[in-house]
């Protein structure tokens, strides 16, 4: 084995610093060879090692009695009762999607699904929070259209419904879109498997697609550095992988069959850092070592170098750890599903990861498996708030030209054009799908398919505007928004996963944003009793050295304990009374961080509206109860765009107008004070409802009635439902698709 010192330029070109090189030198007691260096470079990349964020992530609450698997495994797993567990995970595929939108998004979906079936769960739902540059930017439109097509093309074909998500357009994402994907799966508790290699002599079987030169070093080249003008183009494209949903579908079915028959002792998906990551992670988690024969890897082309085989990020591959006696059956099932299977490794007892050319051949690399993980660097990077923070927070975000009716038409947006491209109904669980506050899925027993009478509520939420103004309170409000969204479908929060999309961690302001966001998330998750069971950190989201606005995205899952009828939803009928429930902002409420301030007023700073977390907890609990009891006719969370947009969404959705009084002027209509929900109920129920909210300490205020064919908001806005509907419905198809939709 070559142990010659490497030319210093080699480790730097792989993304390792001189200090990191010295650490590797110390761990091995000798200079690493090129292959070893390549393996450390991918495993110690920001993407795989969380080296900049780990120190902050430790502050998140991660425990609860129902948490079976917390952060650090392929997916978080919670116990939802009746012997059923739920696996959930969210990930980003931001940089690949910026370069090749369709494949970037497609492989993002593929990767997250493998994380779920790795745990032994059948994936039953995907959500896709998407963020793009402005609609008037042709490149951003190209990225948006490609990403949506990629999610549709891959997700529909692989056969997992996309039940919700978000779509946001903002200047901050020009050149650096955010493509986050959440996946959820169900499994019998006893089938839970972990990505562990144990049992000396057991075999590591590589399943699925052949290994090619696609995605070499994707995690270190793409995910762990920002973009500049030049690199927008071709030179990073070979690092983007190409997805094959049909291969993934067969791989998924084959793996679930292997798990059903109890043929694997551990299983691991191949994602970032490819075979290096899968072999070293399974070995080090299992306290074992592994011999890996690179010559046994089924490859896509001749003459691939060992470092290419070991770091390739070719998609649709899994590594199964099987006892030798089970191998024949494993190969039989693989063959039935027409997927390739090769024995590429043997579990050893010495903790060493040895890369060999033939099991008895030359040793190409040898290192302690655990050093790729446990000894990865951990940085306490400098952090500091922006120098002009006080000045920024003193700005008044309510100034600007005001034409409330025109502003409302500009702010309403119906995402149906996007989600109608996604199969959101497969598996017959989708009681509430995309386009609503939260999704609600029937929970069926994965062993029998029988209904449990319960349902899972899910939502993904992020808000870069709030988090730009105040990353701490903004993130707490994002968590509250997610909780309120599932409250609107009757679900009580059980767990949260997060995708922390931030700029360059070498900028102290970005590290401050990250740290503040983690604290805000911790406070809110503790208040809602929703532990963080997994997450992903995406850094270096920057273009030409300008960082994106901080965008922590949360995915939440909760339980509706007894579902006999669909929840009320946001459909109105005439002659109902509308009540605003939750925190009631005063007339001087700040507009900072609102869509109005950013997109119309042109001010991105100021101080966020006051936010009472504990009031919001009470409101969310109360809303959950009234939805579970089907006590109201309609319910809708007040989110982006404030009260006026939420009311307009209900009116457009139902084709029913309304008269609202007491809210005049843009400040009252468009502020984004948190923790508010609109409830519609029959007049006869009003008195008892207000008595009940008062007894429960939940503020509530009657704001108007439904009826007619116009949206009348005090003396400020009077718009026909037809005009509103056209504005909401046509914006996305006109910008991204084929013009006005039919009908």
């Amino acid at each position: 084995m070559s142990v010659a010192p490497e030319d210093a330029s080699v480790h730097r070109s792989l993304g390792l610093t001189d200090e990191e090189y010295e650490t590797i030198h110390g761990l091995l007691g000798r200079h690493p060879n090129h292959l070893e260096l390549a393996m450390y470079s991918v495993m110690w990349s920001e993407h795989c090692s969380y080296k900049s964020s780990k120190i902050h992530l430790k502050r998140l609450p991660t425990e609860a009695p129902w948490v079976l698997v917390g952060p650090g495994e392929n997916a978080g797993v919670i116990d939802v009762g009746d012997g059923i567990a739920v696996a959930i995970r969210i990930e980003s595929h931001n940089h690949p999607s910026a370069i090749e939108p369709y494949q970037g998004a497609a492989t993002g979906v593929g990767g997250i699904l493998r994380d779920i079936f790795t745990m032994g769960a059948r994936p039953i739902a995907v959500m896709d929070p998407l963020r793009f540059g402005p609609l008037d930017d042709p490149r951003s439109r190209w990225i948006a259209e490609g990403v949506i097509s990629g999610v549709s093309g891959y997700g529909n074909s692989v056969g997992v419904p996309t039940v919700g998500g978000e779509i946001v357009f903002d200047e901050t994402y020009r050149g650096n879109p955010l493509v986050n994907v959440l996946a959820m799966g169900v499994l019998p508790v006893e089938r839970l498997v972990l990505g562990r290699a144990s049992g000396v002599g057991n075999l590591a079987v590589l399943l699925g697609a052949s290994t090619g030169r696609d995605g070499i070093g994707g995690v270190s080249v793409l995910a762990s550095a920002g973009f500049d003008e030049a690199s927008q183009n071709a030179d990073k494209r070979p690092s983007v992988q190409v997805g094959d949903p049909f291969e993934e579908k067969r791989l998924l079915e084959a793996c679930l069959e292997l798990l059903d028959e109890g043929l694997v002792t551990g299983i691991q998906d191949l994602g970032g850092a490819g075979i290096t990551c899968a072999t070293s992670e399974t070995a080090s988690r299992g306290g074992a070592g592994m011999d890996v024969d690179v010559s046994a890897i089924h490859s896509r082309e001749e003459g691939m170098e060992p470092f290419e085989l070991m770091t390739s990020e070719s998609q649709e591959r899994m590594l199964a750890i099987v006892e030798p006696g089970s191998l024949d059956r494993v190969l039989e099932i693989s063959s039935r599903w027409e997927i390739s299977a090769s024995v590429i490794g043997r579990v050893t007892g010495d903790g060493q990861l040895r890369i060999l050319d033939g099991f008895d051949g030359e040793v190409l690399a040898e290192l302690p498996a655990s050093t790729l993980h446990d000894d990865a660097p951990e940085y306490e990077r400098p952090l500091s708030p922006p120098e002009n923070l006080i000045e920024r927070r003193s700005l008044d975000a309510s100034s600007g030209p005001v034409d409330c009716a025109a502003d409302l038409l500009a702010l309403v947006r119906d995402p149906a054009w996007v989600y109608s491209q996604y199969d959101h109904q497969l598996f017959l669980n989708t009681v509430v799908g995309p386009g609503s506050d939260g999704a609600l899925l029937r929970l069926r027993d994965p062993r029998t398919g029988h209904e449990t009478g319960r349902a899972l509520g899910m939502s993904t939420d992020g808000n870069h505007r709030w988090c730009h103004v105040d990353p701490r309170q903004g993130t707490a409000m994002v968590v509250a928004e997610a909780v309120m969204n599932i409250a609107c479908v009757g679900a009580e929060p059980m767990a949260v996963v997060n995708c922390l999309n931030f700029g360059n961690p070498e900028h102290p302001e970005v590290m401050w944003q990250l740290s503040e966001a983690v604290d805000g998330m911790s406070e809110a998750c503790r208040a809602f009793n929703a532990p963080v069971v997994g997450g992903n950190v995406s850094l270096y989201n920057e273009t030409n050295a300008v960082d994106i606005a901080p965008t922590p995205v949360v995915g939440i899952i909760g339980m509706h304990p007894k579902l006999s009828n669909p929840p009320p939803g946001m459909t109105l009928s005439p002659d109902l009374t509308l009540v605003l429930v939750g925190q009631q902002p005063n007339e001087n409420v700040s507009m900072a961080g609102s869509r109005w301030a950013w997109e119309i007023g042109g001010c991105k700073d100021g101080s966020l509206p006051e936010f009472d977390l504990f009031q919001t907890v009470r409101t969310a609990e109360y809303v959950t109860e009234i939805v579970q009891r089907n006590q109201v006719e309609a319910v809708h969370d007040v989110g982006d765009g404030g009260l006026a947009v939420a009311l307009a969404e209900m009116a457009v959705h139902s084709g029913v107008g309304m008269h609202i009084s007491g809210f005049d002027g843009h400040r009252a209509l468009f502020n984004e004070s948190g923790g508010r929900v609109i409830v519609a109920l029959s007049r006869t129920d009003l008195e008892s409802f207000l008595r009940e909210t008062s007894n429960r300490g939940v503020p509530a205020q009657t704001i108007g009635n439904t009826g007619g064919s116009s949206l009348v908001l005090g003396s400020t806005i009077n718009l026909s439902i037809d005009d509103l509907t056209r504005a909401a419905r046509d914006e996305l198809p006109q910008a991204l698709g084929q013009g006005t939709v039919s009908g």
Partner: protein
Amino acid sequence: MSRHVGVIRFPGTNCEFDTIDAINELGGEAKVLWHGDSDPGDVDAIVIPGGFAHGDYLRCGAIARFSPIMDAVSTFARNGGPVLGICNGFQVLTEAGLLPGALQKNAGLKFLCRMEQIQFASTANVVGLGASVGDLLNIPINHFEGNYVCAKETLKQLEAENRIVFRYTDNPNGSIGDIAGISNKRGNVVGMMPHPERATSMLLGSNDGTSLLQSLLSTGRAPST
């Protein structure tokens, strides 16, 4: 009564268990038929469910028609056995020559998943039992290639022979004649793009698909000829 229903599973099929659940809920006994088997066993009806058989690579249904089970489906259909192709199953039936015409990309060039209203245009087939021409149903569609196309003479023939089973009331995909489903001449083979199994509970927004599956179960298996 056709109680035993075989539901074909190709690699890439994804609606097989939804279809089985929906049929079993109605008192049928549905089981998976693997595409590589050539004997469907003792079944009273066959469903080719939705999904992406063989990844829809080459062309939807183009590879699936060569799976060994398809010979058995042809024989079964020729003998009068009830066969229902849903979505991808409809595409497979056209590729296999059991139904005329073809399904091309939606006019809007986008995948579409949403509730659609369809209308019975003929009930002389295995899904029409108990229904009347003109009945309106809310059943979701979920396809990229659902734009039915056929030669003019074929369309005339379909109309003359009362073989257009469903028409969309608001054509979502550009199908000729607003066609959402057709049958063979005898009425025992039906292909439709909407997914009846997705409209089997008010929790899912509609149960208008139930009667179609019920009809399939109630249709007697025709005697062998």
